[in-house]
């Protein structure tokens, strides 16, 4: 049965989450938040304005009610307080000219509280009853009704008692202008807030960009370390991310230390094992006899095993060391010089050519190990000539920059079958030449570890041609 794991499905989601921009996220959250805040501010502002305008409107209507009441009461000279209370006269109220204009939107009515029919009304009503809502037992109330022209009218009603009779006085005004004002205000507020919102978004964008700039610097610095252009990350960063740089630097240092320790350990182990092995095998060779032969044979096997495992340990130790690179020219020139000294008896002419500066993206010791093995091998077999060339590989199809080391000799060379055999671990095609037989396989293993390649071919000058491809540091 086929099992589908969640992990497999979660993969793309996780990678999408990883790729989402931090800047976009900050801008998005800030934009959402400020939109909500601005919208709320708009709503509160408009509603507060509406309430204020309404109160203002009602105050106006209230003034008219009070003036109307004053008109209704007989206030002629000499009338006593008692008569005042007893008499209601028809008011001829014109506190606002609009009360006289027919259907102007401004109206007033006077009714008895117990009878809904109109006692007195403004001229503007032109006989319309103005359907005021029932006041009930309240002293006063306010509300919206539909006026004689079908428009909305705000009505304020007040109950008064004159001469033992309750009257309800209502004053109303069309709200058209009122709402128009509110709407105009709301539009203005909205427009202002939108402009403020856009300004804020721009400010947030700039803030995020400027705020995140140190992160970009950190990234560039880390990349420089990874490329081997810098030893450590620049720690001159804002307080919030400076600890990250410090931690990263500590990590780089500890990484290097671990590798260094492992190397030293491997070196010590090598020294510790190889010296007794030399003693055993030399003693056995000197002694002779079947036991000595057996010891000699086993010592040789042990020696190969030790070499093999030391190489493996060394390779494990040097994996993923970040931030290392080296110039190829000095490393190879040094090797050629040393080889010239080692093989001076043989009279091999060693030539070395490199076009332009090339940087190997890795440990100089590893470059030295790989090219050392190749040049040493070539010198061992060469009749008179060894040529070493280093050049960048011009291959636009690959995204990585690589360079090629070729080592050619004019020795006897190898057949294609022998070449395949030669790179296998511990294979020595000729036992008469000193060596462990690990040289070429170490080159192949190390090259693979660096994502490069190694192959053997026939050389134009007659012998073997070794081609070693390794990663180069990107040219900036």
């Amino acid at each position, binding site marked *: 049965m086929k099992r589908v794991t969640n992990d497999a499905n979660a993969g793309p989601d996780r990678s999408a989450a990883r790729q989402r921009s931090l800047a976009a996220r900050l801008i998005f959250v800030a934009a959402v938040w400020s939109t909500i805040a601005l919208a709320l501010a708009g709503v509160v502002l408009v509603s507060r304005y509406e309430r204020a305008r309404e109160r203002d409107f009602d105050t106006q209507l209230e003034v008219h009610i009070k003036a109307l009441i004053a008109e209704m009461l007989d206030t002629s000279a000499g009338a006593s307080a008692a008569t005042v209370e007893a008499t209601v006269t028809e008011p001829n109220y014109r506190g606002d000219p609009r009360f006289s204009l027919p259907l102007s939107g401004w109206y007033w009515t006077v009714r008895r509280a117990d009878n809904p029919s109109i006692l007195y009304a403004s001229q503007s009503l032109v006989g319309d009853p103005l359907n005021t809502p029932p006041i009930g037992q309240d002293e006063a109330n306010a509300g919206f009704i539909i006026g004689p022209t079908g428009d909305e009218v705000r009505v304020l009603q007040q109950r008064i008692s004159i001469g033992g009779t309750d009257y309800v006085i209502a004053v109303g005004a069309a709200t058209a202008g009122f709402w128009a004002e509110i709407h105009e205000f709301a539009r203005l507020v909205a427009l202002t807030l939108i402009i403020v919102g856009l300004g804020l978004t721009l400010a947030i964008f700039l803030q995020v960009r400027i705020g995140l700039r140190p992160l970009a610097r950190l990234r560039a610095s880390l990349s420089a370390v990874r490329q081997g252009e810098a030893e450590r990350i620049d720690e001159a960063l804002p307080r919030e991310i400076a600890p990250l740089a410090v931690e990263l630097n500590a990590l780089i240092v500890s990484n290097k230390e671990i590798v260094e320790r492992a190397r030293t350990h491997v*070196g010590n182990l*090598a*020294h*510790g*094992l*190889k*010296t*007794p*092995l*030399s*003693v055993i*095998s*030399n*003693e056995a*060779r*000197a002694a002779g006899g079947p036991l000595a032969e057996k010891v000699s044979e086993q*010592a040789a096997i042990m*020696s190969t095993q030790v070499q093999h495992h030391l190489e493996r340990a*060394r390779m494990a130790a040097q994996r993923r060391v970040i931030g290392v690179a080296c110039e190829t020219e000095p490393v190879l020139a*040094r*090797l050629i*010089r*040393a080889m010239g*000294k*080692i093989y*001076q*008896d043989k009279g091999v002419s060693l030539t070395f050519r490199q076009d332009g500066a090339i940087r190997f993206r890795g440990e*100089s*010791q590893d470059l*030295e*190990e790989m*090219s*050392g*093995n190749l040049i*040493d091998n070539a010198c061992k077999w060469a009749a008179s000539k060894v040529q070493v060339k280093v050049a960048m590989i011009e291959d636009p199809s690959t995204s990585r920059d690589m360079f090629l080391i070729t080592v050619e000799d004019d020795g006897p060379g190898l057949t294609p079958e022998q070449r395949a055999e030669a790179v296998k671990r511990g294979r020595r095609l000729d036992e008469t030449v*000193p060596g462990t037989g690990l040289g070429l396989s170490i080159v192949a293993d190390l090259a693979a570890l660096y994502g490069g390649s190694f192959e053997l071919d026939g050389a134009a000058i007659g012998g073997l041609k070794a081609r070693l491809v390794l990663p180069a540091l990107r040219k900036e």
Partner: protein
Amino acid sequence: MRILVVEDDTDLNRQLVTALEEAGYVVDSATDGEDGHFLGDTEPYDAVVLDLGLPTLDGLSILENWRRDGRTMPVLILTARDRWSDKVAGIDAGADDYVAKPFHMEEVLARVRALVRRAAGHASNELTCGSVRLDLRSGRVTVDGSAVKLTSHEYRLLSYLLHHQGKVISRTELTEHLYDQDFDRDSNTVEVFVGRLRKKIGADTIETIRGLGYRLGEARDE
């Protein structure tokens, strides 16, 4: 020919000394860095076999010190750290060759032989002077094609003179290069051996230069 072996492992040191002595060399040895450095600094050796990992003073520092002080004897380094970076560091410090451990004694002998020969300016493993021929690999000596049996002292004397043929070699120099450091330098055994050697390879092969020493072969401009 006088060789210095500096190796801290006593077994390996003994093996090297024995093998080199059997090959006809006079050998001094040291098992720590400071002793080795002192010997190389004060005694005239024809070659040094130097281990790099030594107590008290490491091989690389010894080598650098010698070279800085103008000691030019050929040095073969023995190293268990057989990465090229280690070997090249050794060569850069002034070593002439290296042998990686574990090694076969024959390899060390071959390298030492080549170093001594090269230092004296000879390209071949066969040294000849007139009818006298010495094969350094086998240690065989022939005069006019017929083998001559030599004692180890006679062999050393002939080998040294053949390596430096054409040059006047003083008695002191011969004593220094043919005997180890414990030998009584005042004795006149050199003269005795020269006399015996003359009898075996021909009386006129080794010329006595009065007051200066001995010379094998035609005088050479230095």
